[in-house]
């Protein structure tokens, strides 16, 4: 048996265990969401009929329920949904009257730019701020960064969004009010720059808040590194503090920072829900909120599956990066 063969088996075992975990996770999350929607006080037919409830007869309500398949017992509905899911069909959204997959793909495309920008910005700035704070630990700079991060960590995203909206869109008139493209312009005429303008405020909101945890974790970790024996040894050899950080610090801090950055996918998703509400940005977050408020079970379950995959992918990437970035984990057998 060669080393290559052993490695193959190890990789396959690793993959199998990940797939198994994802499958069980998805089943559990879907069943739980379905059950929660079932016991929630929201009656989808009522939510749909809304203010017209005086004009829609019980017979018509029954027809609406039948059209949506709500006349069947919940267990059977979940089973039917699972069977069609296995065939790759996510079902049809009740409120959009469109296939769930179409809605999600459309909405996610809009969210992707928003979340991607925010994620990159908060990663870069957070890491930089954390390193600077650790380098000048105890000084005014460090305290200022720490205060800044703690203030932001306790700032509600929607409030910050409104604040930015007031300052940049209303007072200064520099940026648009919301939406993802200019008002009154056909989609084919919308330029790249237009899209960028509309992305700035929501992305800024999302990234300013995302900076805080990355910066604080990086700072703490780097301070630990700088207090370690090998840092002390380097210092004794006469290396400068900045030199120590560049040669010894960054390498050791990069791993936790990367982990945190990829593990923050879930917070990113949650933050996007709020930012999209404030800026009327038509992304996946807004679609999920609508689905929840209207009891649109197919769309909500679709969004749940999607967000689960999204967050899982984040964690998986963090896991894999560990192996790539850190030579020590490669030497050990995969778990």
């Amino acid at each position, binding site marked *: 048996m060669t080393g290559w063969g052993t490695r193959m088996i190890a990789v396959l075992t690793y993959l199998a265990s990940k797939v198994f975990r994802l499958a069980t996770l998805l089943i559990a999350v879907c069943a739980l969401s379905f059950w929660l929607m079932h016991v929630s*006080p929201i009656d989808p037919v*009522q939510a*749909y*009929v*809304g*203010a*017209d*409830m*005086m*004009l*829609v007869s*019980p017979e*018509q*309500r029954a027809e*609406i329920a039948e*059209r*949506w398949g709500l006349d069947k017992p919940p267990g059977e509905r979940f089973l039917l949904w699972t069977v069609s899911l296995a065939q790759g069909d996510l079902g049809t959204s009740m*409120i*959009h*009257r469109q296939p769930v997959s179409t809605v999600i793909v*459309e909405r996610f495309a809009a969210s992707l730019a928003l979340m991607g920008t925010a994620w990159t910005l908060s990663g870069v700035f957070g890491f930089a701020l954390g390193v600077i704070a650790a380098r000048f630990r105890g000084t*005014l700079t460090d*305290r*200022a*960064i720490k*205060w800044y991060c703690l*203030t932001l960590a306790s700032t509600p995203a929607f409030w910050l969004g*409104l604040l930015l*909206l007031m*300052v*940049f*869109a*209303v007072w200064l008139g*520099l*940026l*648009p*009010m*919301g*939406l*993802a*493209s*200019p*008002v*009154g312009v*056909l*989609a084919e005429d919308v*330029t790249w*720059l*237009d899209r*960028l*303008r509309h992305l*700035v405020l929501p992305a800024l909101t999302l990234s*300013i808040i995302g900076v805080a945890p990355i910066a604080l974790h990086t700072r703490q970790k780097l301070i630990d590194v700088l207090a370690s024996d090998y840092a002390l040894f380097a210092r004794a050899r006469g290396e400068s503090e900045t030199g120590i950080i560049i040669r010894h610090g960054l390498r050791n801090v990069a791993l936790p920072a990367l982990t945190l950055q990829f593990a923050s996918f879930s917070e990113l998703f949650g933050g996007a829900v709020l930012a999209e*509400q*404030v*800026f*009327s940005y*038509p992304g996946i977050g807004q679609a999920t909120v*609508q689905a929840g408020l*209207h009891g649109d079970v197919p769309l909500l379950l679709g969004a749940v599956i999607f967000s689960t995959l999204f967050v899982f992918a984040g964690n998986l990437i963090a896991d894999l990066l560990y192996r790539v970035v850190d030579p020590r984990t490669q030497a050990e057998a995969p778990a």
Partner: protein
Amino acid sequence: MPGNPRSSVSAVIAVLGLVLAVLASGCARADSPSAPTASDERPRDEIVVSLSGEPEEGFDPVTGWGRYGSPLFQSTLLAHNDDLEIVNDLATGYKVSDDGLTWTVTIRDDVRFHDGEPLTAHDVAFTFNTAKESGSVVDLGVMESARAIDDTTVVFMLSEPRSTFVVQLISLGIVPRHAYGPEYARSPLGSGPYRFVEWNQGQQLIVEAYEDYHGGAAEIKRVTFVFMGEDATLAAARAGELDVAAVPASFAGQDIAGMRLVAVPSVDNRGIMFPALPDNGKTTSEGAPIGNNVTYDLAIRRAINLAVDREVLVEGVLEGFGSPAFSVSDGLPWSSPDVVFDDGDPAAAEALLDEAKWIEGADGVREKDGLSARFNLIYPADDLTRQSLALAVADQVRQIGIEMIPVGKSWDEIRMAMHSNAVLFGWGSHDPTEMYNLHHGALAGREWWNPGFYRNPVVDAYMDQALAAIDEEEALELWRKAQWDGVTGISGSADAPWCWLVNLDHCFFVADGLDIGPSRIQPHGHGWPITANITDWRWE
């Protein structure tokens, strides 16, 4: 923590300011060459309108688009004019058979869809038959079938006489048989005043005037409807990006440069429903208790109606953006003028209670045969306006020795409690069916209809006759009689099953110089109905 906290705070502010400044300058550089958005730089025949209520399911009348009338892209057979009288749109006339079961509508032969195809009776029949099968909010349960006799005549067969079927003729937009399919809702095509151009869901809808519109082409050639939240709408209005902005009444006090406030009256009403049965320990099949011994007493219900000062509620709770309400349908053609009475009269209310032997007890609350005039007034806990109304009304009736205890509950709880407690509801529709469903004895306790189990055989008879009437005028007269026929009725000074409080105004900010014509009374719900007369909008 070491250090002077004040210097740390200022440091934070300095850093925050610096970060924002850097980001802002970066943005400004990147953006300066792009298109201007302020309203004065838009062409004069274009407007931008922000409305709440983007229809997620699209613009298909068959599944409910435009059910408040005037569906924008499509035409309807009949329409309301600004006084809510029924006038012809596509129709040239309609006739109801003597048994009330056959409605024959003749239509114009010169109307074309936006793609140039003629609109015929076959399209009308197709629309109604498709809507009946759609399993949507469009309720055509009473219609058996629709059939085109020739190109300009369509016949509707009903299963029973129903004068309110006319509402369907007013609200259901006609779709083209030749261009109707699964994608229709996302690219609607009709014969209405505006042509569909583009819908970017969650953001905006762009439409252009249809030059060959049979009602005369609109002056505003291009309208962009944007769909934003309330805060974003207000901010956009301030930034000069909007020409018409629908805002909640709580924002109406704001001052926006270059815009004026237009408060449109509505039948979007709020009122208190009283259980009209005594509590005999009975419950519904779901187990909800029925009846309330205090509100069962007619004197109590009438006294509350008399004592409440509706003007004070309008000024105090709605900040002037509303009007006193005396029925579920104030100002609509079927509303009786006799429902209005002099309210805010605690002396008359107390006299009524004295006469009915409700005597003031030790705690200031009246009593009768050991029963205190005390009951819950339930309102949906998430609705601030209703909460304020409940508190204000409770305060007013306290003066006459009746204690209403305001309690906030979820809709789920209200559903179980509404047969035995007073509840603050809100209704208001351009369809008299609503009055029928709220007051008819046979519908007591069905869904949300007539939750108080009110029953008056005389009222029931009037409403049944109104529903079965063949002539529209005759139907209107019967609806009015159900409210007050000189002896009895559902009015607040007669049976008083409800105490109507206020009608809300719907508030819009409109750009100076944009004339949106006379606004008709709006139904419950906010937004699209304002576009009913959009063909008359113009820049001055």
